[in-house]
């Protein structure tokens, strides 16, 4: 690959980051972009464990949250004592905290691998999250800890009050972190992470302690999670037990997995998509958490490589020019699939309204901008028909996709090696 080919993606990334707030100019969009950028760092740090080293953690929010809390206390201390430390340095403090706790908890967690490691991460996550309610001075109890980022010393004249300024600060950190985490995958250590993921026993027999590799990976992922936490602290100007709990850990798992844990770029896509869904869906429907759960299950069942993983499957097909064979099959299958999804959403929304809101707000509601009543049978029947009808039709049309893939793969194998 030529030198330009290597640098090009990074230039494109930098341009996208720089230009994004001008493509989406509303206040909420800029907030969303900021959250996306720091979620990218968080999800990439998580994938250092999951995708790179094969460690499934259910408690990663601990390092994000602790990084954030240390950062926010640092900010308040700086404000109180008028230290000359500017805002852009704060994520570094979060990162240091994340690294520290990554080392401390990692020394215990990485003693075991596999399923047991996952259970340990869950237990440790609960331990820290529950401690948060006990250690009230540090965690602020139910209200959390607040701060005001524009009260720190100005940096190059900026006080970082407006969201757009905060966005660029986060975007810079995002770029740096993506670069660093990508670079780490291309080091001897990064390679051995993959080796330990593939075959920890063999890695031991070529001179590497699998436990040490996991420990270092754990500590480094804590570092970057802490940076993300620090950015969250200055973005939201509040940290509470939400940021450290099981829900946050589940969210980063969702982002990374749905995006695709097997590639470097997967978690980036996942972070962007899930953040977008989280912010927009929660305004539209009360059942958004249910949709997230269902999305997760569907991805696990039908595409465990996530979105990017699914796309990557097509790469060899694309290379031999057989992609055209698949497109019509996909297009035909898309119709029953969409019908099925619409039916499913209709049923869930109706159920959600009928069970949760109808008592207080009455049976009238509007779904897909169509007014309907949960009391009338018609919408329910429509939902059932659409969902099951779509499912049955999909079963009929799916063989088209299988046949297309079969033909494409056969053509692939014919190619000279």
């Amino acid at each position, binding site marked *: 690959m030529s030198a330009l080919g290597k640098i090009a993606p990074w230039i494109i990334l930098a341009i996208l980051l720089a230009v994004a707030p001008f493509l989406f100019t509303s206040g909420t969009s800029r907030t969303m972009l900021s959250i996306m950028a720091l979620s990218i760092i968080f999800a990439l740090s998580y994938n250092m464990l999951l995708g790179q080293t094969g460690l499934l953690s259910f408690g990663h929010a601990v390092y994000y949250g602790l990084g954030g809390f240390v950062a926010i206390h640092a900010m308040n201390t700086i404000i109180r004592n008028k230290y000359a430390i500017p805002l852009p340095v704060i994520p570094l403090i979060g990162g240091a905290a994340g690294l520290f706790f990554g080392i401390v908890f990692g020394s215990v967690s990485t003693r075991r691998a596999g399923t047991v490691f996952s259970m340990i991460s869950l237990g440790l996550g609960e331990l820290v999250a529950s401690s948060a309610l006990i250690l009230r001075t540090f965690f602020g109890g139910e209200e959390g800890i607040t701060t005001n980022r524009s009260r720190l010393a100005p940096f190059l004249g900026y006080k970082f009050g407006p969201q757009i300024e905060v966005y660029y600060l986060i975007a810079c950190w995002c770029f740096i972190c993506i670069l660093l985490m990508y670079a780490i995958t*291309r080091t001897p250590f990064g390679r051995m992470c993959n080796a330990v993921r*593939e075959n920890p026993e063999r890695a031991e*027999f*070529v*001179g590497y302690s699998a436990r040490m*590799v996991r420990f270092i990976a754990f500590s480094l992922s804590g570092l970057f999670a802490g940076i993300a936490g620090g950015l969250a602290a200055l973005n939201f100007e509040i940290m509470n037990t939400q940021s450290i709990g099981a829900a946050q850990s589940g969210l980063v798992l969702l982002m990374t997995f749905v995006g695709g844990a097997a590639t470097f770029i997967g978690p980036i896509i996942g972070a962007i998509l899930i953040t977008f869904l989280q912010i927009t869906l929660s305004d539209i429907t009360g059942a958004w958490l249910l949709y997230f759960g269902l999305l997760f299950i569907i991805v696990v069942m039908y595409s465990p490589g996530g979105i990017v993983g699914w796309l990557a499957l097509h790469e060899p097909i694309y290379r031999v020019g057989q992609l055209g064979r698949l497109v019509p099959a996909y297009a035909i299958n898309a119709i029953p699939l969409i019908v099925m999804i619409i039916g499913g959403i209709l049923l869930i929304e109706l159920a959600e309204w009928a069970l949760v809101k109808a008592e207080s707000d009455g049976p009238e509601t509007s779904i897909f901008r169509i007014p309907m009543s949960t009391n009338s049978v018609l919408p329910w029947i429509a939902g059932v028909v659409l969902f099951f009808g779509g499912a049955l039709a999909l079963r009929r049309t799916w063989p088209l996709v299988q046949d297309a893939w079969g033909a494409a793969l056969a053509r692939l194998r014919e190619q000279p090696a």
Partner: protein
Amino acid sequence: MTPALSLQNVTKSFGQMEIIRGVTLDVPQGERHAVIGPNGAGKSTLFNLISGRFGISSGSIKLEDQEISGLRPYEINRRGLSRSFQVTNIFPRLSVYENIRCAVLWSLGYKYSFWRGVNGLVDARERSEDIMERIGLAARRRDQAGVLTYAEQRALEIGITIAGGARVILLDEPMAGMSRSETEHAVALVRKVTEGKTLLMVEHDMGVVFGIADRISVLVYGKIIASDTPQRIRENAAVKEAYLGQAAH
């Protein structure tokens, strides 16, 4: 001269079952030594004990005068002993090149460094290229190890074992499952890559054993009943009765 590998009265029990009942063996430096014996004799267990996969129950194992019993596999590997596996034990989703490169990194001193780009490490690249040439997989360097043919995976298995430059090589049934012609290739490969090193090999194929080994030890029910040159082993009455007589080639 200190032997490359020295086992003194090594025993191993799994619960009540005594698998290795007192093995004493010295392998001089540079020797090619084969271990043969009937199924269940404990050959693979012996390898697992030497390479640190299991701990011994009693006795001592010395690598060039350093006691290695009780050490973790990676500690033993760092001291210059490397082993292959009877059931192919590679990194399936990494490419052939990556498989070999992972095996050279520690021996080149790169340890856990996460601050140097691995693609810029010239010595790692050159060593890996060299190994891939020697095992005949240079053309497959970019392919995932998991999609190689069985014989190619066995070659890769050997490649990973020797890549780190270990002085003492343990090969556990390297020809397992190979056809006649594949075996011939593999024998030439083994001879080539173990020149100047100490080789300890477990094999069932007598043709291979007599072709490669300088000395042969016969392991029966966890004890070595004979340890001698191939010619004398062939003539040894006890060995014939215990082993060769049952599966004469």
